[in-house]
């Protein structure tokens, strides 16, 4: 079919070869081309294999690098040393306490952000006057670096827990509001108008159409912004903390404990990955109607 449109001789020359193959089993043709087909499907097994390979590749390189003695252990500890360090951190250096306080800070900052951003974003996405009033302001503030707020936060809130939560809040909130507003705006107009023609009032449209329609997108927004909240943890724990994963990383630098820096970074990555997977699982469970 495409050969009819493309006049170049190369294309027409290649065409007979294509039409000559249908005698071969279709299955085989699919198998040959499916791997690199644009947006093609791969089997569950290959997907798992590739995921495993992708995740372990940097670790293998890291392990080889250190095992061959190419790096100074002072700056680049081996995977074994880092694992050992995690074990020691867990038994005698209060790892669980550090994880606990960090998770609490992230969840408090993220939770407070979600608590305000969800209704606010809903209003911005639903009512044009609210959008005109608040969206440019939010856009402006979100470009201000959260890190730059640290001195102010310390002056205003002090150096206790509140300040760390507030930094995480500032880092996530403004992005979250805009994303929630966008999710709400993406609700198809036909869904809203259908409710209007059935006689729904404003409150009913928000409650029975806009919210349930936007829910899957909103959960995705929460999942993504939760990841950002974790990235602001280390920044937040710059503020005279004396516990937490981010703090442990910063302190380890002072004592040249490279293995602990590695351990801290890896643990934050792992916790992030687990929360992300939890959100995805919730998404699949909560919205069975999205499955074909």
């Amino acid at each position, binding site marked *: 079919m495409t050969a009819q449109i493309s006049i170049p001789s190369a294309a027409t020359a290649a065409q007979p070869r294509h039409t000559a193959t249908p005698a071969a089993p279709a299955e085989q043709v699919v198998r040959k081309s499916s791997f690199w087909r644009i947006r093609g499907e791969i089997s569950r097994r290959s997907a798992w294999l590739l995921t495993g390979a992708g995740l372990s590749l940097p670790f293998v390189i890291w392990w080889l690098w250190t095992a061959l003695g190419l790096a100074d252990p002072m700056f680049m500890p081996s995977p074994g040393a880092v694992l050992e360090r995690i074990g020691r951190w867990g038994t005698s250096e209060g790892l669980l306490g550090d994880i606990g306080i960090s998770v609490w800070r992230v969840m408090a900052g993220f939770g407070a952000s979600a608590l305000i951003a969800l209704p606010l974003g809903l209003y911005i996405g639903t009512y044009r006057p609210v959008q005109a009033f608040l969206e440019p302001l939010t856009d402006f503030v979100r470009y201000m670096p959260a890190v730059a707020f640290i001195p102010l936060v310390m002056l205003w809130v002090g150096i206790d827990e509140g300040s760390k939560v507030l930094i995480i809040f500032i880092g996530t909130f403004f992005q979250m509001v805009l994303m929630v507003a966008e999710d709400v705006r993406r609700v198809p107009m*036909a*869904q809203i108008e*259908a409710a209007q*023609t059935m*006689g*729904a009032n404003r409150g009913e449209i928000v409650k029975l159409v806009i919210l*349930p329609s936007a*829910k899957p997108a909103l959960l995705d927004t929460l999942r993504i912004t939760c990841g950002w909240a974790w990235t602001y943890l280390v920044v937040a724990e710059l503020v005279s903390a004396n516990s937490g994963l981010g703090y442990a990383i910063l302190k380890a630098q002072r004592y040249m404990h490279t293995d602990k820096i590695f351990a801290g970074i890896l643990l934050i990555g792992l916790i992030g990955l687990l929360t992300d997977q939890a959100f995805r699982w919730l998404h699949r469970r909560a919205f069975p*109607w999205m499955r*074909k």
Partner: protein
Amino acid sequence: MSDAKIHVRQVGKTFVSEQREVQALQSIDLDIQPNEFVTFVGASGCGKSTLLRIIAGLETLSCGEILLDGKPIDGPGVDRAMVFQHYSLYPWLTVMQNIKFCRQLKVIGDTVRHDGDVESAAGRADALLNLMGLTRFTDAYPSQLSGGMQQRVAIARALLPKPATLLMDEPFGALDAQTREVMHDLIRHVHRLEKSTILFVTHDVEEAIYLGSRIVLMAPRPGRIDSIYEVPLPAQRHQDMKLAPEFTELKREILARIRETSGMQTDLEQLAKLSAVAG
């Protein structure tokens, strides 16, 4: 005149954007009788959908008046139901929940309570499901249905509160030809059964003739009624009539008129000249 179901008089609609003003409708006069099936055709930009949306109460008019049962239209109402081209079903609700959606709304809930016929209303949902051939799909989600099935759900949902008027905005525009034929006979059946007044917007002239008892042909820039055709077919219709001489003659006439009023005619002539030069 006064017994018209919908009385449209000197209606105009102007859309104002930052750059320009668009005269979507100008001096529209139209009377639609109860239980009439009127189809609207015309080149794109002729305002047929806008007129339908004004009658639905989704848009306001800029001038003139529209009386529905003698009263001016003030926003959407339960007496008028609308079927959209697509994306109007609620994907998180099952087929049955979609059909019964309006039951949760305050306006409908009140009337049902007044009538005291909650029971019969429940029976109606089942009857509509049956009429649309959807009984096997009661608990399916819209994403599991074909496009034709989805539109049946949308029609059943619109019919549930027994609307006197059914407004359809290119409801079958996204369906394939075979599914569309089935839907045509279904909607004619609904029209006879429910005795509703139907206003049906389409870009498919054959569809307009087969379904309508009257065809309103509209023309663009500014959107206006160009001509109105009576369909010379009996009330009881079947697919073979599409091959009858009076059907094809009417189709030819309407298509020619749409082409003349579309403003594309000059483009086509230009193109013919160009190809003559090239040849």
